[in-house]
């Protein structure tokens, strides 16, 4: 078990607590840089998808995990990012600026939804965001001159300065850089006043206001940043799938993203990565298990959503802190062995809450 002797306040501000962490994260980055030179194309592609899910998940985690605003329509922001980027790029905007502009457009629409959603929380907000996602889906399928509707929209090969970003290798490194940058931005935000304001809004709106947190500003900002990151993920996703259809961005994708943050672990940055790994691996596992199922069940439509839904429910009921929470418990078990007590993570509920004034 490691005890860190803190000798100055900067240690609590730094991203890494001790050199051990620096070493392991450095090793992870090094492994990710070397990986594509040893892996087959299929696995490079899968890793790229993983990065895209991490970027989208980072956006949603800020909103659900840290600000406590539930969105069940984040597929809409992925769609906005994907179509905005594809259309702009086709119109001749260079590749990287077009990615950025897609994120900004998505963030702008997120801000509008954020303002509209200010007075809503919980289930009402979830329903409102689902409706927003349906509207976006319908707009995409109806706005044929721009989006191509159900006939689809071919995303052009991403080339800039003569570099073909479409090749698996280059695109992999592009996504890797963006993932690292996005994660750093999110972690910086969380260790500064804005991040604390978001958490304050999540835990107690009334108390947040009493501490001088501007609810309107904080919630709108959370929605904007969340939509921008998810939109950026959508823009990258458009190149991975090559052809855009409205069917790529249905409620099923929204639930997949929701599952990412819930299964990963609400309110943890590690949870984003764990959740992204989980939703990348799950479809493969389902495909493998399918071979062992009786045929009347294996090829029935809806098997995958059923499994997704069941797992989501399972985590909500039995491990609300997700895979990250489970990992923390397992780690505590081994570092404290044989002294680990099951009740370490039991929290006493406080039934005394100030009378709500809303």
């Amino acid at each position: 078990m490691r005890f860190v002797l803190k000798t100055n306040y900067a240690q609590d501000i730094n991203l890494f607590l001790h050199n051990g962490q620096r070493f392991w994260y450095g090793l992870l980055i090094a492994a990710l840089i070397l990986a594509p030179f040893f892996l087959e194309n299929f696995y490079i592609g899968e890793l790229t998808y993983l990065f895209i899910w991490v970027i989208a998940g980072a956006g949603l985690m800020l909103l659900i995990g840290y600000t406590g605003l539930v969105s069940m329509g984040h597929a809409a922001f992925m769609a906005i990012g994907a179509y905005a980027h594809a259309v702009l790029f086709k119109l001749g905007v260079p590749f990287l600026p077009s990615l950025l502009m897609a994120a900004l457009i998505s963030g702008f629409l997120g801000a509008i939804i954020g303002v509209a959603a200010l007075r809503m929380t919980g289930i009402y907000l979830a329903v409102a965001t689902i409706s927003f996602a349906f509207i976006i889906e319908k707009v995409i399928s109806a706005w044929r001159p721009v989006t191509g509707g159900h006939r689809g929209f071919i995303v052009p090969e991403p080339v800039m300065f003569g570099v073909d970003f479409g090749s698996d290798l280059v695109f992999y490194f592009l996504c890797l850089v963006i993932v690292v940058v996005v994660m750093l931005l999110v972690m910086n935000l969380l260790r500064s006043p804005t991040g604390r304001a978001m958490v304050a809004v999540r835990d107690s709106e009334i108390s947040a206001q009493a501490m001088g947190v501007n609810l309107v500003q904080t919630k709108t900002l959370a929605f904007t940043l969340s939509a921008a990151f998810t939109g950026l993920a959508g823009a990258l996703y458009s190149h991975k799938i090559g052809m855009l259809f409205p069917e790529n961005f249905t409620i099923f994708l929204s639930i997949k993203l929701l599952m990412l943050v819930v299964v990963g672990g609400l309110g943890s940055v590690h949870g984003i990565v764990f959740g992204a790994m989980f939703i990348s691996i799950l479809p493969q596992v389902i495909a493998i298990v399918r071979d062992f199922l009786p045929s009347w069940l294996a090829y029935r439509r809806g098997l995958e959503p059923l499994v997704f839904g069941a797992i989501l429910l399972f985590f909500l009921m039995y491990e609300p802190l997700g895979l990250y929470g489970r990992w923390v418990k397992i780690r505590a078990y081994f570092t404290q062995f044989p002294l680990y007590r099951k009740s370490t993570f039991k929290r006493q509920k406080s039934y005394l809450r100030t009378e709500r004034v809303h």
Partner: protein
Amino acid sequence: MSVFEAKEIGVSFGGVRAIHDVSFAVEKGEIFSIMGPNGAGKTTVFNLISRFYDLDQGDLFLNGERISNIPPHEVAARGVARTFQNTELFENETVLQNLLTAHHTHRRTSFLSEMFFFPKVRRQELKFRETVEDIIDLLHLQSYREQRIDALPFGARKIVELGRALCLEPQLLLLDEPSSGLNPEETEDLSFWIEDINEELGVTIIMVEHDMNLLGQVSGRVMALSDGELLTIGTPDEVREHPDVISAYLGE
């Protein structure tokens, strides 16, 4: 000039007149207490000052400026901090994070500079941390620093909440029943802290309190409320012996 003044304030919820025509002024450096039976409207007065409720009549003034129609976070930005009767902390965060959050009104950085964590953000964080540590030392919270709120006993939560309010570096502090849920020893500590906060930090305090001993020890003037109406304002002894106050508590 008074630090805080309420002029003929009133509010009704449906047909219930929670506060009716109450006026009082609090001088700089004073410890002003509000007492009254259950449902007298003591916490409602606090919620009106914090601007969680809108006034139906009357006006509130802070340093002579009208605050009757500014949003709640503006009230905090002008130096009014408060605690809640049954504590209202950020449950999933550590004590340290809770105290740091209270520095929100002193923030001078934008979210963009925070996302890139420019040197000035780091300097600001260090400054916040130093003042938080001062409060931790003042209230002896060292052993709780890294603990999550939901793992703390109720008494400790009350003290953390007091500390969080102090981190806002307020000029006016509203304490809603600070001693409820504390044992006699903790209440004793609390009375010393309240005096320290008042005298050494120069904070004006308005306090809702039931504990007559605590009231008698620390407060200068006491206001008695009953059914939303002002009964009397005076020293603790005067108020305790006032016939209207006795009949409000004990009946005719």
